[in-house]
């Protein structure tokens, strides 16, 4: 096995089994907030115990090891084809080892060949940069939270949402209401205002690469993030939809250009089992740094 493949198997293992530090911190904060002995507090306690157990046993935090999304920044001229081939082998290997569930199904035949490799699976997002380093980030996104994602086209008459920031606020909060606990809350929102139907969703997911505690450099978006977070946590949906103070752990929003005729707001929901990790790789494919 090449160094790169070994590194990518380790990236997958750690992403699947270990919650990132920033997310764990938010979960512990939520556990403190919830009333002791409530259903919400008991659910958060089980979640915290699960985090410790998964790490100790090197086993998946959640059995739905999700869609496998690679975000790779490469130096100019790097061989992306070889990276993708190696990553596919790493995915197969990680599946054999139980870091990933046999989780990829042929949509026409319903067949699951047990490898997690097929058309569009895993997914790769390659970007070249001027630097000399290779950075590979991985998000494993479960189906339960993916299913509660939503895309709105503004204006939306039912929600009285116009083509402005208040309209965006209304539809984002509607998505939180519709999701209830179904996406394994407390959740984290990744939102893209603008783009087209495909890029809107795609960019909304890049927001999950941000650290939970960071602040948006765009003042209007920062205000909207804080507002959505605070308002959502006043709705009383709570962990698992059991009721309680923590409906969301974080909100991350970006804006992308759109064509004049379209105004999409695309919302991706990430469950508490927020699996995101990243590595910086040296020239021989070994891990030099962890990014989160």
């Amino acid at each position: 096995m090449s160094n790169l493949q070994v590194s990518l198997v380790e990236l997958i293992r750690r992403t699947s089994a270990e919650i990132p530090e920033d997310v764990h911190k938010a979960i512990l904060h939520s556990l403190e907030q919830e009333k002791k002995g409530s259903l919400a507090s008991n659910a958060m306690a089980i979640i915290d115990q699960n985090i410790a157990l998964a790490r100790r046993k090197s086993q998946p935090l959640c059995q739905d090891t999700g869609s496998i999304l690679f975000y790779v920044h490469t130096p100019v001229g790097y061989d992306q084809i070889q990276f993708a081939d190696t990553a596919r082998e790493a995915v197969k290997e990680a599946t054999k080892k139980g870091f990933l569930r046999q989780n990829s199904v042929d949509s026409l035949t319903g067949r699951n060949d047990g490898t997690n490799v097929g058309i569009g699976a895993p997914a790769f997002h390659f970007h070249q940069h001027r630097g000399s380093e290779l950075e590979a980030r991985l998000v494993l996104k479960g189906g339960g939270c993916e299913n509660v994602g939503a895309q709105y086209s503004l204006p939306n008459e039912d929600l009285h949402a116009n083509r402005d920031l208040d309209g965006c606020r209304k539809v984002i909060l509607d998505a939180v209401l519709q999701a209830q606990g179904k996406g394994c809350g407390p959740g984290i929102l990744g939102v893209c205002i603008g783009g087209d139907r495909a890029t809107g969703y795609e960019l909304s997911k890049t927001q999950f690469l941000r650290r939970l505690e960071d602040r948006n450099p765009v003042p209007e978006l920062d205000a909207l993030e804080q507002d959505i977070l605070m308002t959502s946590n006043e709705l009383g949906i709570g962990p698992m939809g059991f009721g309680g103070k923590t409906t969301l752990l974080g909100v991350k929003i970006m804006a992308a250009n759109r064509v004049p005729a379209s105004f999409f707001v695309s919302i991706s929901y990430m469950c508490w089992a927020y699996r995101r990790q990243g590595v910086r790789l040296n020239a021989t494919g070994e891990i030099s740094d962890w990014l989160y």
Partner: protein
Amino acid sequence: MQPGKSVTGFTKISMIELTFPFNENQIRALKVGDEVSINGVVFTGRDAVHKYLHEGGQLPTGVSLRDGIIYHCGPVMLKQADNTWKCTAAGPTTSIREEPYQWQIIRDFGLRGVIGKGGMGERTQVACREYGCVYLHAVGGAAQVLAERVRQVRNVHFLEKFGAPEAIWELEIVQFPAVVTIDAHGKSLHEEILARSRAALAERV
């Protein structure tokens, strides 16, 4: 029905012990918000199994859901050297996808409990009241805590047909924690929280 013994982890004094086979009176006595600790044999079944049964498919020999529980779960299973299975991750999957089918499976197969996450809709709620069944909400994503409560993987059915996550796994569980969120009195925690949160949102937009 006895209060649960206080043991390791999250089995608490206030938990109600449920042990297979479950009887109708015991199930009908449960109320929304009760925390339960489940013991005995349960069968997993999710999208493919529900659709199959809804379309008139027969349960494989050796599988009975009568007075039993179906668990909406697609576990991670590893085959051991001696050909037995080890359950390494086993949290609940989203239940609402089974809403078109669940009422019928409760009615026709005599289910007393459905374990899942995210809640279910009105048809399931009505079937729970009508036939004496409850919906038991496990903590979504808690795959390791819940896998630890699987004492033994007794058998697997439809592994070839549906693939590992969608197969019917026969699990012996011990002190498996869940919350009653739809009871047999026609009450649903999900309905209550949705109504309350909708009203709270209306004041804030």
